Each structure stands twice: as structure tokens, then as C-alpha cells.
């Protein structure tokens, strides 16, 4: 069990450990957003005609939309014509096995602590490695295949399993859902695809590691997970990016579909480059994540640890369509220095006896600002819907902010919706108590904050919980004193 202390020791002096850049020959699309670029991306991926048309349709809808501005963080106008929508390491032909992968890319992932291999530390986790716009490797594909589980990049899924992709793509987040989802639908490049067949319990954690490397680009990830009847899968994504003075856009769409009695557990450890202390650079993380509990007694659970990004703007949601289905959202968001976050969830109760649970822990330090925004909507037919929301904020110092914006709409009188919210300051007494026992001030902050967030951290898959704890500690370095 690594302690927060070991962590801070290990990282002292390193503010953002993953800020390096891999110098690699890459192929770029010219900057700009138009039909031609979309066709270029689609052609690069040898996509079937229906998908090219699907992208173009999304782009047409996108052109009728405007960048939203209802959020709390001040985003400013983003010039989407100034972004290259495709960047990929140059390779003459696709690697046939894990051994053929470019050594530079291999080294990059080694430095990030997730080597491309099927042994040792990652023996129990299958990983899809996404580097800028393409997936460069996926481990344990064969082993999973024996169980009928499909785990590959979405590009590969389009080639190998077009019927599944066509059936489910856009079925939870339609092309025109919102401005950034429409953009993603038009230009998405890679991401992961998971299909778990009927009655199969996926025996290992599935994971995607997203790395932005190239400058002047955005990352438009598309992930689609389908859990067929009675199946179970736990999936985790991690993200990092080099340290740059310009903002970079990560606009992802994630869709989850759970059929009768299926369960999907989706965890995120988000550590995009957070930008400098005064707000220069950093990733804009504008993501649409939504799960559809389509089947009876299905369950979708989101767990997120958000420590990176200059601005995080996302609401992983559950649409509880099947009777007796259940949605969960567990979130820890840390904002330090000039970081901003506007995050929360939406729980849409449609089926009877649907239940949802929301636990949000927000930690703000420096002059960061954070908003929890959550919607609980109970539709007319959702007899006996239940929701419990617990929303706690912790402030460190006196220059940061925390806001809670709950929206509750119920159209069924049998619904029971509960909302609890607290805001606390990390107390000097707690810090002094720790220090009087020999624990340094920074380690004391990490300890108290990890305690505050524990309810959520406990939801993370074991393999990642230790990493995530360290991340909380590092993200708050320099937040006191």
C-alpha cells in the first residue's frame, strides 16, 4: 500500500509528471474543419460509405449550432478552424503484433507507467493505447476473444463488426445532441469499442489510455460499450498530455448500452495537462458521456477522478429506461491554481422502480473554481423512482470557489428524490493534528483530502485506486502555505 507520503516524496519538484513530448514523425491533416477534412479522416480509416455520410450529417447539424455559454467557467470563443483534426504517428504498415510497435511509442507508454505488454503489472488489465488520433495497440485481444468479448479500437470495430457499430453508434448520444457532441460525431478519430456477449462476465479490467502528443491538434475520442443481456464489464480510461502554453481541445463522446440484467462499471482517471498556475495552456476537456440502461434490472455506474485539464466540462449521465434499472455516479474533482470545472451528472428516470445514486466530492484550492451541476429528472411513467444525491465540497485556502447547482424535475408523485450538500474548509486543526504527529503539511493535506474523497475512491477498481490516490496528492501540491 503506497502512502500519500511516498507519493509526494517521489514527485517533489515535478508539478506535472506527464508533460513530456515524444518526438515522432507524424502525419497531420491540414488545419481546418470542412467536408473535405471529414472525408479525409473517413478515408484514412477506410470507412464504409454509411459512416462517411453519418459524419457529414453530424457536421451539417453542427453548422446550425453555436458554442454554448451557459456553463460557469469562462471558455471564450474556440476557433475550431485553427485545429488539425487528425494526427497519427507515421507507419508504413500497421503493426502485426505488439512486438512490431514503434519503439518511441513503446517508450512513451513506459514513461507513463503503462508499458505495452501482457505481463507483469498489467497482467490483469487489457489496455487499448490511443496516441493522438489512432489506437496503436490493444493487449489481450485474443484471450478476450475466446470468451466472445470484443475489445478493440473503434476504427477496427468499424471494419470487423460494422453491424454492431452501425446498430449502436449514436443510439445514446445522437449526432445533434449538443455542439461538442456534434463536432465529435463529425471528426472523431479513435477510441475503444467493447462488446460483451450474453451472460459473460468479463474476467479482467478493460482500459483505454488516451495520450495527446502532437501540438495544434485536438483529440476527438469516441468510445462505445455494449453489454448484452446478463453480462458484466468494468472499464477504465486514463488520460495525459504534454505541457504546452496553448489550450488543446479534447471533445469526446462515450456511449454505454446495458441490456437486460447487464452491468457496466465505467471509471475515469483524468489527468490531462492542467495548465500553468496562472491559467496559461492546459487541456479543455469537454466531454459527453451517457449510458443507457436499456434493459430491465440493468446497471450503469460512473466513477470519475478528475484532477487534470484547465477546464473540465462534463456530465456522465444515465438514462434509466428499463424497469428496475439503476444508475450511479461517483465523482471526485480536484481543481487547483487556475483550474475550473463544471461537472456533475444527469439521471433520467423513465422505467418503473428505477434508482439512482449520486456522490460528488469537489475539492478546490488556489484560485480555482468548481461547480457541481446535476439533473435528476423523473418522467411520468417512472413509478417509485428513487434518487439520493450527496454533494460535498471542500475548500483549501480562501481564494477558491465551490458551487452546487442541483436541478430536480419530477412528473411522477411517487418519486422520492433526496439531495444533501455540504461545504467545508479543510481545517487548520486537522492539519495541525497531523503535523504534531510528524506528517508534513502537504502530506497532511493529501491525507485529509483522500479521507474526504474515500467514498468515491473505494469505487475505483483496485488496480487503479493507488494511482488515483497519488494523483490527488500531487494535484494539490503547493495548495497550502
Amino acid at each position, binding site marked *: *500500500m503506497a*502512502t*500519500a*507520503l511516498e507519493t509526494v516524496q517521489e514527485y517533489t519538484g515535478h508539478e506535472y509528471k506527464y508533460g513530456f513530448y515524444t518526438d515522432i514523425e507524424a502525419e497531420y491533416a491540414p488545419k481546418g474543419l470542412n467536408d473535405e477534412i471529414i472525408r479525409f479522416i473517413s478515408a484514412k480509416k477506410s470507412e464504409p460509405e454509411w459512416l462517411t455520410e453519418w459524419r457529414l450529417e453530424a457536421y451539417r447539424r453542427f453548422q446550425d449550432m453555436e458554442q454554448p455559454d451557459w456553463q460557469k467557467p469562462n471558455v471564450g470563443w474556440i476557433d475550431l478552424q485553427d485545429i488539425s483534426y487528425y494526427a497519427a504517428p507515421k507507419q508504413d504498415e500497421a503493426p502485426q503484433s505488439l512486438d512490431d510497435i514503434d519503439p518511441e511509442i513503446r517508450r512513451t507508454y513506459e514513461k507513463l507507467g503503462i508499458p505495452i505488454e501482457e505481463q507483469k503489472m498489467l497482467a490483469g488489465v487489457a489496455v487499448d493505447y490511443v496516441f493522438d488520433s489512432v489506437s496503436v495497440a490493444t493487449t489481450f485481444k485474443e484471450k478476450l476473444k475466446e470468451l466472445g468479448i470484443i475489445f478493440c479500437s473503434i476504427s477496427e470495430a468499424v471494419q470487423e463488426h460494422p453491424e454492431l457499430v452501425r446498430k449502436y453508434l449514436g443510439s445514446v448520444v445522437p449526432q445533434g445532441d449538443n455542439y461538442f457532441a456534434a463536432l465529435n460525431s463529425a471528426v472523431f478519430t479513435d477510441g475503444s469499442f467493447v462488446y460483451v456477449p450474453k451472460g459473460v462476465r468479463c474476467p479482467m479490467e478493460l482500459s483505454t489510455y488516451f495520450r495527446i502528443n502532437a501540438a495544434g491538434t485536438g483529440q476527438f475520442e469516441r468510445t462505445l460499450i455494449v453489454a448484452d443481456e446478463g453480462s458484466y464489464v468494468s472499464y477504465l480510461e486514463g488520460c495525459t498530455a504534454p505541457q504546452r502554453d496553448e489550450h488543446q481541445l479534447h471533445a469526446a463522446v462515450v456511449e454505454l448500452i446495458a441490456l437486460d440484467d447487464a452491468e457496466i462499471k465505467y471509471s475515469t482517471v483524468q489527468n490531462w495537462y492542467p495548465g500553468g498556475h496562472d491559467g496559461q495552456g492546459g487541456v479543455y476537456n469537454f466531454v459527453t458521456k451517457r449510458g443507457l440502461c436499456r434493459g430491465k434490472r440493468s446497471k450503469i455506474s460512473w466513477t470519475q477522478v478528475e484532477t487534470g485539464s484547465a477546464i473540465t466540462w462534463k456530465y456522465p449521465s444515465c438514462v434509466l429506461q428499463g424497469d428496475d434499472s439503476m444508475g450511479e455516479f461517483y465523482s471526485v474533482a480536484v481543481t487547483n491554481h487556475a483550474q475550473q470545472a463544471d461537472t456533475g451528472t444527469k439521471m433520467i428516470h423513465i422505467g418503473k422502480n428505477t434508482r439512482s445514486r449520486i456522490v460528488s466530492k469537489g475539492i478546490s484550492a488556489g484560485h480555482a473554481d468548481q461547480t457541481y451541476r446535476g439533473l435528476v429528472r423523473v418522467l411520468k411513467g417512472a413509478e417509485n423512482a428513487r434518487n439520493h444525491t450527496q454533494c460535498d465540497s471542500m475548500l483549501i485556502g480562501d481564494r477558491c470557489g465551490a458551487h452546487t447547482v442541483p436541478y430536480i424535475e419530477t412528473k411522477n408523485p411517487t418519486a422520492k428524490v433526496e439531495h444533501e450538500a455540504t461545504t467545508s474548509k479543510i*481545517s*487548520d*486543526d*486537522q492539519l*495541525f*493534528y*497531523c*503535523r*504534531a*504527529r*510528524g*506528517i*508534513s*503539511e502537504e*502530506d497532511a493535506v493529501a*491525507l*485529509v483530502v*483522500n*479521507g*474526504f*474523497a*474515500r*467514498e468515491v475512491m473505494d469505487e475505483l477498481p483496485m488496480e487503479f485506486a493507488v494511482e488515483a490516490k497519488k494523483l490527488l496528492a500531487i494535484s494539490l501540491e503547493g495548495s497550502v502555505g
Partner: protein
Amino acid sequence: MLKIENLHARIEDIDEGEILKGLDLEVQPGEVHAVMGPNGSGKSTLAYILAGRDGYEVTEGSVRFEGEDVLEMEPEERAAAGLFLAFQYPIEIPGVANMYFLRTALNAVLRARGEPEIDAAGFMRRLREQAEIVGIRSDLLKRDVNAGFSGGEKKRNEILQMAVLQPKLAVLDETDSGLDIDALRTVADGVNRLRSPERGIVVITHYQRLLEYIVPDHVHVLVGGRIVRSGDKTLAQELESKGYSELMAELGIAVPADALEATA
């Protein structure tokens, strides 16, 4: 090992003048000193200043621990040097398991001293051993630090921390307050087992009661920010029978009546 000379201190940001007004105290290894005083005499101020809490300003005097200037050290450096304060009001840390907290503290102290850290198995052995001595049930080790503990459990937990950290000098700030007689006995037993020829202990208390169980070598009476009288354990008994007012009168010390209100 501890030498306090002419210590003057006030609370920052409050214009009430000095709370400690020239306090002297010297503790040698193996000695148990009791500092007794009525409410408002500066007992807790002394404890907090020794541990390095923010909010106090030392205006004059010095505190040396094994020759080092304590006032120049951060609280965590004092802990690493072997100073320990058992809090009068132990603090709750929700979500942090008691045993995890203790191991984090112990390893921090070991690391600061340049000693190897203790592994999980070694720590558990040490913890269980000490918990038994102090009379702490094992479920308290797994619960969050002090959260939902009874008054007695909190105080016992402080003694457990002391037992695990093995300080050179322990300061117990009103460890008897809020304890019933059984809890008091358990806590006192724990402290007594930690008495050793190398370790100094300062027991800060309002009442003589605790000193029936932790028998001190020296007793000091703190009134109005100064030690007005020192003696052996019989001084505590004298104080108990006379009360602070009478003792002060004998000494010819004028003390504001409200400082003595809660005198036993």
C-alpha cells in the same frame, strides 16, 4: 532534556496581553512532571506552544529540547525530534482509517530521522501489541481517526499514538478531562507502562485526581502564566485539600477571582 526559560507568550490577533509571563520548567529523562493550574492559567497555551501550533506569539524566553531551539522548528520536526502532545480535544479526520493514520505518522517520523520505514506486517505487529497495552479494541484501529469515538476512546487513542510513536518527551494536555473513573484508570495504566528512564513526561491537569494514578516526581503550580510553586507529589495533595485560592493567599499572590472559579 526540556528546558523552558522565562517564556512569555500571547495569542496573536487578540489584544489581551500575555498569557504566559515568564514560565520556567526543566524536565530530565525518566522524570514525570505535573503542571497543575486553574482554568485560564496558561496550561493549554503551554502545551500548544511546545507542539508548535499557529496563533501564538512568543514574546520572550526560550524553549530547548536536547539543546535544540524548539521554537524554530516546524510541528512535524518537533514530532520527529521526539516531542509528543496528547491533545485535550483530539481531532476527527473522516475517511482516514486510524491505523493508516498511525502508520503514515510513524513512517514520516522514521524517515525524518533517517531510519528505515516499517513495513505493513511489522507495523501491524507493533500496533496490536501497543493497542493491547493501552486497552484499545481492534475495531477502533479500523475506524476513521477519532470519528464517532467516545470521549474515553479518543483519549485512549492519544495514548496509543504515543505508544506507537515512542516519543522521548510526552506532554499530556488534560488527558483526564471528561473521563469517568474506569477510563481514567485505563489511560493512566497506559501512561505508566510508557514510563521509562529515557522518557520524560509532562502531565498537564486541573485536578489532582489523575495524579493518584500517574504519580509524578515533581509538581508545579501554574497560575497567571507563571509557575508559582514547585514541589514533590505531596504538593498536589496539598492543593487538593486547600484549593488554588488558599494556596495563592498563602503565597501572597493576588489572582483575579474569575481565574479560580472552577477550582476543585
